[in-house]
């Protein structure tokens, strides 16, 4: 195969190329791209390959002098037959499903409302966006305070609105609320993300389409379902893709909010992975775990992107 950068240099118009003194375009292309490629190899590709290698061993990072054995597929088999890990996957799926559903509904609704172009909508958009730019760790930590049973703002608000005594339930303690608590915080943080993307979608619909529909006497309801929704759909799907990938590997916010507890109620795959890798130091085993997670996201995302492209082409 010919060198891509050679091809690049050849593709540059000759009139331009001839004019250049000093370095040739090809050399410049190399010089400009090489450091980036090197960094990507060092920080992204090489670790991935190393993880794959480790996943076939029983290596433990806290005992670097111990002999390392090849164990073949043993780690993979153990993980895929472990009930605990399937339970974590279900916890992750629950978190993923509900955050996506809530964020899509709220995000779209907000974008739709903001697109009414009332006075001050720009300012409000900027304010609404703030939570998603903040450090998830710092935010997760502070929400433990908001969720305190006796003194926290959340329980107090519930008491104020419904009369349920504030200290009668605990959002992060036993009682089954914890999986919903992390969904609430994630939705609080990331609804603006879906909203922004939907807003871009809504603003990309040209006015004349609605005008034509109006001439055809299509009702507003019909216009919404036959124009607005299909035109925003590719944008919405993109938002779901990004949020899906992010939440599948969710770690920082949840680890500080619940640490996986109470019990294992909010033990997302990523948090479990951290325990295996950096608390139990089962490096080989957790490498296999990491590869399984990566392949799962990669596979799902690839299928999803294909579907997304089909929707776009329509």
């Amino acid at each position: 195969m010919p060198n891509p950068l050679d091809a690049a240099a050849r593709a540059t118009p000759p009139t331009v190329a001839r004019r250049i003194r000093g370095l040739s375009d090809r050399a410049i292309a190399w010089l400009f791209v090489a450091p980036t490629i090197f960094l990507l190899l060092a920080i992204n590709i090489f670790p991935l390959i190393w993880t794959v290698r480790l996943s076939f061993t029983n290596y433990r990072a806290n005992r670097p002098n111990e002999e390392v054995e090849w164990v073949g597929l043993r780690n993979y088999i153990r993980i895929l037959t472990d009930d605990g890990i399937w339970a974590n996957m279900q916890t992750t799926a629950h978190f993923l499903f509900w955050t996506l559903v809530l964020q899509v509904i709220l995000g779209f609704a907000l974008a739709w409302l903001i697109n009414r172009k009332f006075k001050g909508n720009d300012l409000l958009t900027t304010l609404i966006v703030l939570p998603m730019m903040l450090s998830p760790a710092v935010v997760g930590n502070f929400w433990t305070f908001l969720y305190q049973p006796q003194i926290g703002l959340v329980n107090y608000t519930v008491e104020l609105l419904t009369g349920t005594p504030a200290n009668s339930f605990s959002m992060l303690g036993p009682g089954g609320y914890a999986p919903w608590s992390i969904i609430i915080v994630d939705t609080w943080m990331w609804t603006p993300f879906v909203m922004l993307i939907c807003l871009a979608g809504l603003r990309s619909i040209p006015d004349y389409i609605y005008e034509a529909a109006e001439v055809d006497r299509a009702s507003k309801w019909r216009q919404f379902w036959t124009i607005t929704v299909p035109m925003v759909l590719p944008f919405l799907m993109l938002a779901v893709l990004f949020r899906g990938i992010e939440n599948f590997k969710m770690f920082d916010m949840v680890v500080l909010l619940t640490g996986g507890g109470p019990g294992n109620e909010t033990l997302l795959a990523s948090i479990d992975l951290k325990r295996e890798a950096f608390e139990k130091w089962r490096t080989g085993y957790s490498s296999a775990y990491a590869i399984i997670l990566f392949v799962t996201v990669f596979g799902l995302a690839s299928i999803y992107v294909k579907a997304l492209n089909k929707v776009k082409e329509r």
Partner: protein
Amino acid sequence: MSAYSVTEPTRRSKLVAGVLVVLYTFITLLPLVWIISTGFKSGPDSISYPPKVVFEPSLEGYVNLFTTRTRVGAEEFENLPPAETWYDQIVRDQGMVIAGPSRFGERFLNSVIIGFGSTFLSIFLGTLAAYAFSRFKVPLKDDLLFFILSTRMMPPIAVAIPIFLMYRELGLSDTHLGMILLYTGVNISLAVWLLKGFIDEIPREYEEAALIDGYTRFQAFRKVVLPQAATGIASTAIFCLIFAWNEYAFAVLLTSGTAQTAPPFIPTIIGVGGQDWPAVAAGATIFLLPVMIFTILLRKHLLRGITFGAVRK
């Protein structure tokens, strides 16, 4: 504009939409307001029931954030000379004396060094690569976005395992340089992709004219392309900075002492019997404020950054 437009929402629908959005904004900002206000509460006020909306402002949280304090015996406490400074006084009012500075200052400084260092490096390398990607034909250009996305599919813990081993070998564990390189490696694909989008928008004719005028490629890049791309470079830089600033997983796993940034530190601020919430809130406020300001400055390019350039508006 015409007197009647079918696409212009009616006044009533605008009003209803406005009210609903204001309501949402109010609810969504409440936790942020709570963080900022808790930072100015005294210890007892912060944990009172019902939660206090109106309170007497106090700098206790900020003083506690920057100091470590210790209790002394009752007799000794009585015999202390009067407090010399206002912050001494605030600590005395809690029945303690200042033992020394806390590590928050260092951690914050680490965040600044690592954040700005990795941003500078990502932008420097990213701009060069983006220019090459934009101006020369490179195969697989279309797959680049998916590649960038796929580098973000690895859970951070999964990346951290080999990086941890690699850094241990290279002596980069818990160093500023190690964290700068790591964050640059994570940010650079996004930076290249965003910057390529911005550079694509600069007409090629500008440089070609410069080349014909006798500039070298380098000069054309420096004197024609860079000034034109300045806004794009600035907003990409802010995105890189925000990522490095907020990052927690790598920081907590790969640093412990010298190079630890603020996000792993803030949750460890402890007072008497649990977290010292006014101090945590004070730290959070100082830490979150720069990002809030940046978000407001960035609002025009926000969408592009968060979608890796997939949506440009």
